[in-house]
């Protein structure tokens, strides 16, 4: 399935494929739709900044969080965003090690997506701290009281895991982009742009020695990033699983979270890839085969997530713990039941369409489905965070979480900021890896003498 001819259509050569991708950055001005989206999301980003300023001045009380539900949207958004951030590294690293050719044309922008999503994710816990200016207390540093972070706390593990993830993802992304930056350096016309690309390319010449070391380091980073993909969301899940709260305290959480992360991540890849390939005319590079493969991964991870839901229910009744049973029935019939059933429809029922090949190759349908899955996974994160906290052990400590307008503003603001970063990325940097596409052209030539 994944040989070079099925993932690259048309009669492309080294030069034409390079020019097609580079011209999006260098010569072709963006269309009115791009400009509209860019400035629209820019306004959203400014609003996000203003909301953050209000939050820092007033406190987290502007959100709907209170005891017993102290986490609310902020933590749910964090878990959702970091989950989305998983697909990029999965595509880049795991599929590279598995020699999947279809990763080539989607890895660059999926990695960018990962970086931006992980950045959004890292903002929310910091804002949720209440005193965000003391966030550096999470890091071990020589303070004059001789204090250390609490090494047994998953929240500290989170800090290390997410920070490592962002740094390693950036290194991986940048390392892979160096040859392309050199291409842009050699093709840019303006002096400033040539200088900027030249500095960023670090003097890449495409020498055999450089390619050899580059390939080696890239492979090693893929090897390092592969366990990282699994570990980051596992650590995030431990924020919940280590807490002795009904609905949280479960050993299935790490794999369940990782599967959900890949599920929502691939949904976001499709959400971005389908408009991108249409706007940039990339149908020959991001073919229906790519969509088909990504949809298959979504179907597989959807099944794992569904298994997770079933297992949670089974374990509650099999374990016989009355609080777990109460928690489970409350999800079905309680205050947040609409969220639960919407989640099941979005994450389990609708993805069953992907069993049909015609659905997997229908771009429009996949785009709609990816939005549904994004929504469903967000619902899941909210449900996990909120439903367990609002019905704890003591009825006297029960309460509801109702999001305020600020909760929604922060969600919308982070979406706008993410979209703005992505729009800026596709304008300023090559959205597809030119050097790897040339390699694909070469392989196709070899295959067809």
């Amino acid at each position, binding site marked *: 399935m994944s040989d070079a001819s099925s993932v690259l259509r048309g009669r492309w050569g080294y030069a034409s494929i390079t020019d097609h991708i580079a011209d999006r950055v260098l010569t072709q001005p963006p269309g009115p739709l791009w400009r509209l989206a860019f400035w629209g999301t820019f306004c959203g980003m400014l609003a996000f900044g203003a909301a953050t300023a209000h939050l820092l001045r007033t406190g987290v009380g502007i959100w709907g969080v209170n005891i017993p539900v102290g986490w609310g949207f902020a933590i749910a958004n964090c878990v959702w965003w970091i989950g989305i951030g998983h697909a990029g590294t999965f595509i880049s690293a795991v599929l590279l090690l598995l020699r999947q050719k279809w990763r080539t044309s989607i890895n660059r922008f999926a990695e960018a997506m990962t970086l931006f999503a992980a950045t959004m994710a890292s903002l929310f816990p910091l804002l949720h701290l209440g005193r965000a200016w003391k966030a550096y207390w999470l890091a071990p540093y020589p303070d004059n009281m001789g204090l250390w972070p609490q090494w047994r706390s998953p929240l500290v593990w989170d800090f290390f895991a997410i920070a490592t993830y962002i740094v390693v993802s950036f290194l991986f992304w940048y390392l892979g982009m160096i040859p392309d930056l050199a291409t842009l350096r050699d093709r840019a016309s303006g002096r400033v742009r040539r200088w900027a690309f030249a500095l960023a390319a670090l*003097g890449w010449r495409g020498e055999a020695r450089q390619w050899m070391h580059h390939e080696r380091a890239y492979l090693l980073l893929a090897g*390092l*990033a592969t366990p990282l993909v699994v570990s980051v969301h596992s650590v995030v899940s431990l924020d919940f699983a280590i807490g002795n709260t009904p609905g949280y305290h479960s050993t299935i959480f790490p794999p369940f979270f990782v599967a959900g992360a890949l599920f929502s991540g691939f949904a976001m890849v499709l959400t971005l890839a389908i408009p991108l390939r249409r706007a940039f005319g990339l149908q020959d590079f991001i073919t229906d085969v790519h969509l088909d493969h990504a949809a298959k991964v979504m179907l597989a991870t959807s099944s794992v997530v569904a298994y997770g839901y079933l297992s949670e229910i089974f374990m509650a009744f099999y374990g016989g713990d009355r609080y777990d049973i109460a928690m489970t029935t409350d999800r079905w019939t309680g205050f947040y039941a609409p969220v639960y059933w919407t989640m099941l429809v979005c994450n389990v029922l609708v993805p069953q369409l992907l069993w049909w090949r015609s659905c997997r190759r229908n771009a429009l349908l996949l785009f709609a489905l990816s939005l549904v899955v994004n929504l469903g996974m967000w619902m899941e994160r909210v449900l996990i965070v909120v439903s367990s906290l609002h019905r704890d052990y003591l009825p006297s400590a029960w309460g509801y979480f109702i999001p305020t307008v600020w909760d929604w503003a922060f969600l919308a603001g982070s979406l706008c900021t993410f979209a703005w970063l992505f729009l800026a990325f596709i304008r300023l940097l090559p959205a597809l890896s030119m050097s790897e596409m040339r*390699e694909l052209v070469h392989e196709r030539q070899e295959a067809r003498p």
Partner: protein
Amino acid sequence: MNPGATQPSWGLAAEFAGADALLAAAHAAHAAGYHHAEAYAPFAIEGLPQALGLRSRGIGRACLGGSVLGALGGFFMQWYAVAVSYPIDIGGRPAFSWPMFVPVSFSLAVLCGAFAAVGVMLWRAGMPSLYHPIFNTPDFDLATRNRFFLALRSDDPAFDAQEARTLLARQDPMRVCEIRP
């Protein structure tokens, strides 16, 4: 007037249109005794480093070393914090609860391993260096697009201007030219 007569040239470069031509030329140059020949291509060509007699060493070891250092350093830091620097007795629980130190140690192992791999890769690849004589070659801006170059350096012990020119001309290049240093 030949500019190479007044200024010693850095070497000779031949330009090729395809990967196979470059690969064949690299083999020929290596067979003729050029052990410092440099090949330039717009993508990683399988077998090209081997044709030039290059081997990638050190990056894997650096990566492993960085990872081990990161893991041990992270583990030591946590042990030092809870057992030596600021031990807290919480209901008699052991201070050195090592399973809880694994996630941070692992993160630091990956982080340090990645930095070591990238750092050593840049060093071994001679980066960053913004100037190189090969950039003076005509058409070299296409080396990152669709052209392939083989450069024979004049400081190579096997280098002889006349023989090198003949050797490159025999490989059917698009052109051969001298490189100013």
